[in-house]
């Protein structure tokens, strides 16, 4: 047993009220679990959604403004022609994206219609076999990851919904999401989807040296029904679902934070009332108000820290379980980042402050004599 210090005191005080400390830590852990799971889920869904835009090699994308889901975007090919006519635009490729459910293991599989002559410009490399013909109706290429996953190769046939396609080749886009998709001639997909003259997205490259922001502004001015997307922040303009998911994440996190903070405050206030006399004694032997605040906050911080560690661990497990849900397979690929840890720690710190600051200040402000008379 070493000489006593503030950390020892905090540890011993928590140990003396084990059941209460564990229950408070559990409340914090549940709050952090919720925050981590919501955060990873949102961030992963955002990454998945953004991945669609990253398939094409472009300076920015153009989509219909204000749609609920990016994949519901419909841009007229006359708009594509207008964009192409701008002098600062080097190239603009219109693609049609159609999500289908291939099977229970692949609830979200993309068919991407791209003109055969634009494949190279779109950033597609044919790594095996050949590209589909420009006017073919039943030819497709598979991303090499999709081919590997489905056990298919060039020359094989592939059934999608009620149609059979011949796989002409495998491609790579340098982007995981793209490499798990399929591509076919734009006109063929437009015919299949009964959307002639319509594309989902435009992938735009500007001439070297041109001001990208100025080009985006010009397009949005000329074509008010579309929005340009370059960053994650822009994405909400063309995918309202993501905005709603973000809002749900924020709301859920605030709720979890509130529940955690109320749990911490409940315990700390209870402790304050029980230990008023103890605080008075400590002040009587010369402890400063700051040291009393440090003791009370330290106890709450230690509970929150342990709760946060447990919550993060449980959050990771919860996210792994979520990713196995049939409806989320292929859509939700958990991406864990250091930001998740920092966010959890930040929320734990907030729980500590919101829950324990008031009781700590009350304990410190009480006059020692008055506190020592407390029964």
């Amino acid at each position, binding site marked *: *047993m*070493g*000489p*006593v*210090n*503030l950390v*020892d*005191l905090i540890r*011993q*005080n928590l*140990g*003396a009220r084990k059941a209460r400390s564990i229950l408070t830590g559990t409340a914090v852990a549940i709050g952090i679990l919720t925050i981590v799971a919501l955060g990873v889920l949102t961030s992963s869904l955002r990454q998945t959604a953004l991945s669609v835009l990253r398939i094409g090699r472009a300076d920015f994308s153009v989509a219909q403004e204000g749609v609920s889901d990016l994949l519901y975007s419909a841009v007229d090919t006359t708009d594509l022609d207008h964009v192409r006519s701008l002098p600062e635009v080097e190239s603009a490729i219109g693609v049609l994206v159609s999500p289908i459910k291939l099977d229970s293991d692949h609830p979200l599989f993309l068919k991407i219609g791209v003109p055969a002559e634009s494949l190279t410009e779109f950033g597609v490399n044919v790594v095996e076999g050949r590209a589909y013909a420009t006017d073919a109706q039943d030819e497709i290429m598979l991303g090499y990851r999709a081919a590997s996953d489905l056990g298919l190769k060039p020359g094989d046939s592939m059934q999608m919904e009620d149609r059979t396609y011949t796989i002409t080749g495998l491609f790579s886009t340098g982007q995981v999401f793209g490499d798990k998709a399929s591509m076919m001639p734009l006109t063929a997909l437009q015919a299949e989807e009964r959307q002639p003259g319509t594309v989902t997205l435009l992938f735009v490259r500007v001439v070297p040296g041109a001001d990208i922001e100025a080009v985006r502004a010009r397009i949005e001015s000329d074509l008010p029904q579309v929005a340009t997307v370059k960053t994650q922040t822009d994405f909400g303009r063309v995918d309202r679902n993501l905005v709603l998911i973000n809002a749900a994440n924020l709301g859920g996190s605030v709720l979890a934070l509130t529940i955690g903070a109320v749990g911490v405050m409940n315990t700390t206030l209870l402790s304050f009332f029980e230990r008023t*006399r*103890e605080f008075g*004694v*400590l*002040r*009587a*032997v*010369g*402890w*400063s*108000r700051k*040291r009393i605040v440090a003791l009370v906050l330290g106890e709450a911080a230690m509970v929150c820290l342990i709760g946060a560690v447990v919550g993060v661990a449980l959050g990771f497990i919860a996210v792994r379980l979520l990713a196995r849900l049939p409806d989320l397979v292929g859509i939700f690929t958990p991406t864990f980042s250091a930001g998740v840890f920092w966010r959890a720690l930040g929320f734990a710190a907030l729980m500590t402050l919101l829950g324990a600051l008031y009781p700590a200040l009350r304990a410190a402000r009480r*006059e*020692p*004599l008055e506190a*020592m008379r407390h029964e």
Partner: protein
Amino acid sequence: MSEHAVVVTALVKEFDRGRIRALTGLDLVVDRGEFVAVTGPSGCGKSTLIHLLAALDQPTSGSIAVHGQPLPADSGARDRYRRQSVGLVFQLHNLLPNLTALQNVEIAMMGTGVKRRAQRERAATLLGEVGLAERVTSRPAQLSGGERQRVAIARALANDPPLLLADEPTGSLDSDSADGVLGFLQTLRMERNMTILMVTHDTRAAETADRTVRLRDGRLEAEVAEVQP
């Protein structure tokens, strides 16, 4: 340097907006190294005097000087004063129940700049001096009343204060335990030349002091006994 450890002048302390007057103009001088017992009937202001001397409360009027220095008004300075200049012993030991005897003494040294190892050594030495060398790892619930009060005295001495204030230190003890505590206070007075001001109801306890002063209605009634050599 002042010869007087404590100089109290025209000290008034009122409570409840002046409806209760605990001290009504008390004058008291305690010399360095003197052991003074303060007696008097309940409500005469004995404990109030200790609280004011310990800077646990503020006087309504009048002044207190300890070792020539007026008591500080600033909260931080009062904390420092309680930490460094006075040791406090209460009727109830006021030990922290979760901590061992050793830790209860150590907590008084936290924040004083004394290194942790030195804190521990000093706490162990003090507990040895009060006869509890074998009980350093015991928690208050495992100690007798007299032992707890001795731990409280060790805690009061942790920062080597020149002035010890004791408020009914034997009030909740049996005769044997009380004798032990009083004997130790006398030892402190003799060996460390410590100034001790002890409030007590117990005339037998008061007899162990060098001098006894009696309060009535918030002021000095009479000095009952003269200084012993």
